[in-house]
Structure formats: structure tokens, C-alpha cells
């Protein structure tokens, strides 16, 4: 509701609709008598002080009549919309309930009706059912129904494919009940939103019918009727016709604005609850930059509005030729870390760093164009979905060649040759033929190779691979891992490999960085992972992973509870609530990441 009033359109819509409702309620009791008072001495007058909108052919005050007509206009519109909505929803829901043949018949009928001009349908029905309010309401109602039916049908079809509907069908829940319990409640929201907008259209359409003389008949009157009566006097006394016209327009605009605003408010996901501002990350003294490192990150923090801090004071170093695995569960902040390094954190996220050095240059100190150039030539990123990096409309060879023409100033032929050469290098069979194909003609593993080849068009110093094999089959995953290892060894690039799969990380990487709730909890050489991990979380993670040698007679280890969401992380160790070793100190005081043996760091008060 608050969101509704925040936008000017929503506010205007709400005010207009509220105004109309008030007029409909108080209109008849206040102006009712005056609207009906016949006064032969003032017939057909224009606007005056006594009658701001003039009078009609019986000397009745038109302003009073406009105010009184509001109730009938709105009631008829409401009734019309209800008829349209009920008929439409039932028609739209029927195909999901009926047996196949019946369903096809209903769908065909709805399709035919949607194609039929609405006004024609309305006028036809109105004439058949007899002139007057009843005919107009039925007519417009019937005219609205097909679009409601179509909307219901589309929405129902999308929900009918949901797993919970399949589950209900398997449990033998009757079709009718599936419709009322599972489908309708989950599509009610858009239907109700559509209702508000339909109300506006119905109001306008009814006014149109009355204006054509097909709607409300005297002595009753609605806005359309008043407009009809005043229209032939519009040249002598425009106010007579303008009054009802303005009323119709305002009501129509009001309902449409409100409907739009409601739809937009509903589409927006719920905003995260307001929490305390982000905790200030304790700034440690930053040591001298490491001249050897390709990538050096110190105190990287990513904050979103509302105190949500998915990455908290992360530090990381990657040396040339080294593959560092960044491992963590969903929500641990590992992918955002990658985005922050590549400058890709989406708005409104905010990135702060103590230091962010790539190839010896401080990214924070570079001018924007220099930073882009450095990232464009020395950073290669590989994502989980290769289609995120490939343009589906372009041939893969052209996309690769573009890197060379844009960043290296190569000629088109040379760039194309290089592209084919790079495709060959990542073991794509028949590279010259593949280069002329579009991404959709390639398999998932092949596409991922193309993305890696794209990174190899330049001379990458840093490769960031964010879950590059998660969507792939194990056999293909194996090939891609092998390729990454080969590429790292050949180019001497530093590779940051991000994955939720500790087994994959354990197989590929030299060094492992474990993240939990936005912080690094442990950093260790890969050969220490199985037996030498010191943090209880790392140990539990390794223990809970079944592999090909797990003892099948023993239950698997699992960690009770769940990782706190980025907005819930407290002052102490985020893992404390799930940790067997936790003491009082753990939940109040944050353990720093401190050295623990050779090339091994851990953030735990109780590390053994």
C-alpha cells in the first residue's frame, strides 16, 4: 500500500478512485433532489453562477445531475466487470478441468471470441437483450470476457506445469480441486489487478454505449447519457457536455492508473526488512603490495541498501600460474566477490576495497578508460551459463574476432584466423566450420570452450571462472577442468575458480579459500583439505560430501541449521550457531583470519 502511494501515478490513481467512490456514496443523498427538480424558468441555460454547468431542457441543474449520475455509472461498471471477469475466468479455467476434447473446444471458442471486435460483440448483445442499462451491461460484460478468459488460460497453463500441480495429480487430487486449490489461488493476483483496469475500460465503454443511445434510458441517467443529452448543445454552451465528459475521463484515468500502479507494486519483490546499518569492518593495517601477485584483494566489502552485506572484508591473493578455488555454499558471497573484482556488481550494490590490484596496477587509482582497458585485455571471465557471454544472433567466430579487432586493432581477416586458431586450441573439432556457426548450434560443453577461447584471444593475466561446470555433465566437466588447467599452465595466468562443489575444487585447484556468510573462514593448500582442515565448517563440509569411497554403512555427516542470510550476520563468528565447538566468545567476538601453519590461515577461536 505504501509503495502504491509512492509513485505519482499511483497516488493520482488512488486519489481519483477515492474521489469517485465518495461521489458515488454521497452524490444522490446530497444532490438528488436538485438533480430532479424541474424548473421551466431556466431551461437550456449555459454556465452561470447559479448553475456552473448550465441546465438541461427541463431546467435541471447539470452539475447536480453529474454528481448524482456517478453512483449509477460506477455501479454499472462494477457489475459489467464482474460479469466479464466471472464468465472469462470460468471459460479460461475450463480447459484445465475438462477432458482433452472439451478443452480444445473451449480454447477454440475463446480464441475466436478474442479475435472478434469487442464493440461489435457488445452492440450485438445489447441489441439482442434489449435497449437499456441491462443490455449495455450484458453487452460490455460479454465483450470483456474473452480477454479475461485468455489471461486466465495463459496463467493457468503456466501454473499447471508447476511441480506442485504434478504432485497433486499424482496424489489423485480431483481436477476440480487442483483448479480451486492449486491453480486459481496462484493466479488470483494478476487476475485481480486486471480487474481494476477492466473497471476503467468498462466505465468508458458503458459511457460510450449510453452516448450512442444504446445504454441507460431516461428517466435514469449516467454520465454517458448526460454527455449524449448535452452533446448537441456543445457549440452554444460547452460546459453542458464538458462536465459529464470530464467526470468520465477522470474516472477512466483513475482506474487505469490505479490498476497500473497495483500491477507494478505486485511485480516488485518484497523489499528486505530494514535492519541495522552494515557493521563497520575493522580495518586492519594493510601490508605492502605483493609484487608477484596477479590479483591482490584486501578488505573487499560489498554492501546493498538496508544493511545487507553479502561480502565482508574479504582478502585474496592469486599468483601467476596458480589456480585458487573459492568455495562456499549458495549465499556465501563467492559469486559477488568475482563480480566485484570484474567491476560487475549490479546497482545498487556498493563495493569498497582496502586494495584491489590487478597486474600490479591499483584499479581504484586508474582512470575509467584505463581501468576498462586493463580489465578488457587481461581479465577473462567464464560464467556458469555460457550463453550469458555469447550473443545468440552472431556467429561464434565473429564474436571471438571482435576481441582482437577492438582491443588489439587487428584486421578482420587476421582476427578471424586468430579466432579459428583459438577455437582449435580449446580442442573444438573442425574449428573453421564451428566458427561460422551460431551459439545455439553448439552443445553446452562446446559453448563453454568457446567462452574460454574468447578469453584466450588476448593474453589473459587473470581468469575468473564462476561455476563454469555446474550446468555440465560430469564427463564434459572433466574435459573443461582439464582445459582450464592446461590454459593456466600455458599462459601463466592466475585463475580464480569459484564453485560450490568442494570435490571439483579439490581436484582442480592448488589452493582453496573457503567462504561462509561473506567471510573467508579458511585458506589452505589443497593437499590439506581432506586431513588438515582446521575450521569446523571446512571439516564438516568435507565430511558431508559423499565420494566414491564413503563408508555406506555409516550415516553421512551433515551440518544442522542453515547459513545466516547476509542481513542476519551478527557480531561474532557466523558459523557459531551450527558449530559443535562454539563457546560464548564465538557468538560475540569475530575471529580474525590468522596464520595456522604453512600457507594456511584460519578464522576460528577453537581451531585445533
Amino acid at each position, binding site marked *: 500500500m505504501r509503495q502504491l502511494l509512492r509513485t505519482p501515478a499511483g497516488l493520482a490513481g488512488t486519489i481519483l478512485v477515492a474521489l469517485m467512490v465518495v461521489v458515488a456514496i454521497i452524490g444522490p443523498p446530497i444532490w438528488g433532489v436538485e438533480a430532479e427538480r424541474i424548473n421551466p424558468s431556466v431551461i437550456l441555460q449555459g454556465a452561470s453562477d447559479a448553475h456552473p454547468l448550465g441546465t438541461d431542457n427541463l431546467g435541471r441543474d447539470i452539475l447536480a445531475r453529474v454528481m448524482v449520475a456517478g453512483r449509477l455509472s460506477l455501479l454499472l461498471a462494477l457489475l459489467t466487470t464482474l460479469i466479464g471477469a466471472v464468465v472469462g475466468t470460468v471459460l479460461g479455467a475450463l480447459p484445465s478441468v475438462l477432458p482433452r476434447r472439451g478443452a480444445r473446444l473451449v480454447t477454440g471458442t475463446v480464441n475466436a471470441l478474442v479475435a472478434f471486435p469487442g464493440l461489435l460483440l457488445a452492440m450485438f448483445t445489447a441489441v439482442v437483450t434489449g435497449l437499456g442499462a441491462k443490455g449495455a451491461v450484458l453487452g460490455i460484460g460479454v465483450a470483456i470476457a474473452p480477454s479475461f478468459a485468455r489471461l486466465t488460460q495463459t496463467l493457468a497453463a503456466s501454473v499447471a506445469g508447476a511441480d506442485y500441480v504434478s504432485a497433486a495429480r499424482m496424489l489423485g487430487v480431483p481436477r476440480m480441486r487442483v483448479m480451486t486449490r492449486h491453480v486459481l489461488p496462484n493466479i488470483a493476483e494478476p487476475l485481480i489487478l486486471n480487474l481494476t483496469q477492466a473497471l476503467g475500460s468498462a466505465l468508458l465503454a458503458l459511457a460510450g454505449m449510453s452516448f450512442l443511445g444504446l445504454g441507460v434510458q431516461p428517466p435514469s441517467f449516467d454520465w454517458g447519457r448526460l454527455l449524449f443529452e448535452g452533446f448537441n448543445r456543445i457549440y452554444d454552451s460547452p460546459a453542458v457536455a464538458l462536465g459529464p465528459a470530464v467526470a468520465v475521463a477522470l474516472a477512466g484515468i483513475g482506474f487505469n492508473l490505479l490498476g497500473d500502479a497495483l500491477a507494478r507494486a505486485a511485480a516488485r519483490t518484497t523489499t528486505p526488512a530494514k535492519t541495522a546499518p552494515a557493521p563497520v569492518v575493522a580495518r586492519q593495517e594493510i601490508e605492502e603490495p605483493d609484487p608477484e601477485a596477479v590479483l591482490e584483494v584486501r578488505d573487499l566489502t560489498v554492501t546493498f541498501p538496508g544493511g545487507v552485506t553479502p561480502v565482508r572484508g574479504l582478502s585474496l591473493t592469486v599468483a601467476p600460474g596458480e589456480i585458487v578455488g573459492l568455495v562456499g555454499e549458495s549465499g556465501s558471497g563467492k559469486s559477488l566477490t568475482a563480480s566485484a573484482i570484474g567491476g560487475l556488481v549490479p546497482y545498487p550494490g556498493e563495493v569498497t576495497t582496502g586494495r584491489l590490484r590487478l597486474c600490479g596496477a591499483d584499479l581504484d587509482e586508474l582512470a575509467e578508460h584505463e581501468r576498462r582497458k586493463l580489465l578488457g585485455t587481461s581479465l577473462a571471465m567464464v560464467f556458469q551459463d555460457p550463453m550469458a557471454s555469447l550473443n545468440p544472433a552472431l556467429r561464434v567466430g565473429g564474436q571471438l574476432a571482435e576481441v582482437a579487432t577492438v582491443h588489439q586493432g587487428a584486421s578482420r581477416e587476421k582476427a578471424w584466423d586468430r579466432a579459428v586458431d583459438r577455437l582449435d586450441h580449446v580442442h573444438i573439432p573442425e574449428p573453421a566450420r564451428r566458427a561460422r556457426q551460431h551459439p545455439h548450434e553448439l552443445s553446452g560443453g562446446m559453448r563453454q570452450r568457446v567462452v574460454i577461447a574468447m578469453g584466450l584471444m588476448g593474453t589473459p593475466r587473470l581468469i575468473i571462472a564462476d561455476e563454469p561446470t555446474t550446468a555440465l555433465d560430469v564427463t564434459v566437466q572433466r574435459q573443461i577442468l582439464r582445459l582450464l588447467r592446461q590454459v593456466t599452465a600455458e599462459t601463466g595466468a592466475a585463475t580464480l575458480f569459484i564453485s560450490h562443489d568442494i570435490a571439483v575444487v579439490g*581436484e582442480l585447484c592448488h589452493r582453496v579459500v573457503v567462504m561462509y556468510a561473506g567471510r573467508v573462514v579458511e585458506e589452505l593448500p589443497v593437499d590439506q583439505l581432506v586431513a588438515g582442515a582446521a575450521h569446523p565448517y571446512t571439516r564438516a563440509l568435507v565430511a558431508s560430501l559423499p565420494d566414491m569411497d564413503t563408508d555406506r554403512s555409516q550415516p553421512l555427516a551433515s551440518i544442522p541449521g542453515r547459513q545466516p542470510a547476509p542481513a542476519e550476520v551478527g557480531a561474532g563468528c557466523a558459523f557459531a550457531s551450527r558449530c559443535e565447538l562454539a563457546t560464548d566468545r564465538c557468538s560475540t567476538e569475530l575471529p580474525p583470519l590468522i596464520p595456522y601453519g604453512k600457507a594456511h590461515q584460519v578464522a576460528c577461536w577453537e581451531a585445533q
Partner: protein
Amino acid sequence: MIIKNLTVRFGGFTAVDDVTLEIPQGAIVGLVGESGSGKSTLAKAVTGLVRYSGEITGGDSRRIQMVFQNPYASLNPRMTVGTSVAEGLKLPRAARAAEVERLLSLVSLPAAMAERYPRELSGGMRQRVAIARALGARPELLVADEITSALDVSVQGAVLNLVRSLREELGLSMLFISHNLAVVRYVSDFVAVMHQGRLVEVGPTEEVVGAPRDDYTRSLLEAVPRLGRV
């Protein structure tokens, strides 16, 4: 329960090609294969969600239930956990609450959970609810289609333990489908390997994993990522 000569065709494409597979009473049969191998289609056919030719014998084919991969899509967001679990129960209204409580306790969830909505639950908890719902229909066969793929590793273990304990306590027969051989190996008594719509190897878990006869099985085993193998 025995799946006999089951074939599923989509137009000219044969997704499942003449599969015959026995699921012994009280056993867990693991079905592995890569994407596109037809394992999920087989699951849908067995549960009656897609049309197939062939037959399912040795039990009531209507008493087959399935647990889906994505616990975020398999529960109606507008129904409480209790209502969802009670859906398959053929019981008078009065007996339902007690049965829901029993089903929730079977999957190690507190009875108070029945009042909650799915959005308040973690992925692992939702998956338990989905299992409880399926158990409510007293299935003769439970089909589990990639039920741990959408879960984090730290939660996966608990769900796998639950699967095993249900087999031991209830004597539940299960078709456990996964692309992850390590997971299948851990829970299954028998393993069936599927490739391009056909079963290429079936046998007791230790045999298939320890001494695979088929080349494709070998390549699958070879590709499983292992900790500490460099």
C-alpha cells in the same frame, strides 16, 4: 515392482528406449545418467505424468509417488505445510492432523511445522515436506528425481540419511535418480546406468561401481571428481 519394455516417444524422438528394470521390494535402485539420457523422462513415465508404451507389473502402478528436484517449486506457496502434506490422505478429517504429525515426524520435522508456509522453510526442510507428502499416499514405490541437486552440500547429507532410514524403517522401495554417482552409490542397493535412452548396465552397487562392465559406465566413474586426486 517391475518396469517392462517401457518406451517413451516424443514425435520422432525416442527419449526412453525399451527399458526393463526391476525394483525389488524394500530396495533402493539408483538410476544414473547424464542430461538427456532419459532418466527424468523415465521417472515421469513411471509416475504417469507422460504417456508411455510398455507395462509396470508387480504392484499397483497408481501407488507410485514422486519427489521432485526443485523443492522451491514443488510446494504450493499458498498452502501451509500441513495442508500440503494432508492432500494425498484418504482419511476422515478428524484423523488427518494426527497423520500429518506422524508423517512429519517420519521425516524428522516437528509437528509445529504444519502451520508454516513453504517460504519460511529452508531447501532441505522443504524437501522433507515433499517426502512426507509423498509418504502420505502410502506408496509402493517412491521415485526421487534429483532430490538433492538443488541443495547445498551441508544439507544434502541429512536428506540422504533420511532416504536410507526410510528404506530401513518402512521397507520403502525407491527409484533414486541422480546425475551424481557418488550420491547414488551411497544410497542405492542396485545401480542402473542410462545412456541415450537405454539402460547400459544394471547390477548391485558394489559390482557396478567396483567392476563396471560397460565402457560408458567406466567413463562416468572415471569422471567423478574426487577430493585429493591431483
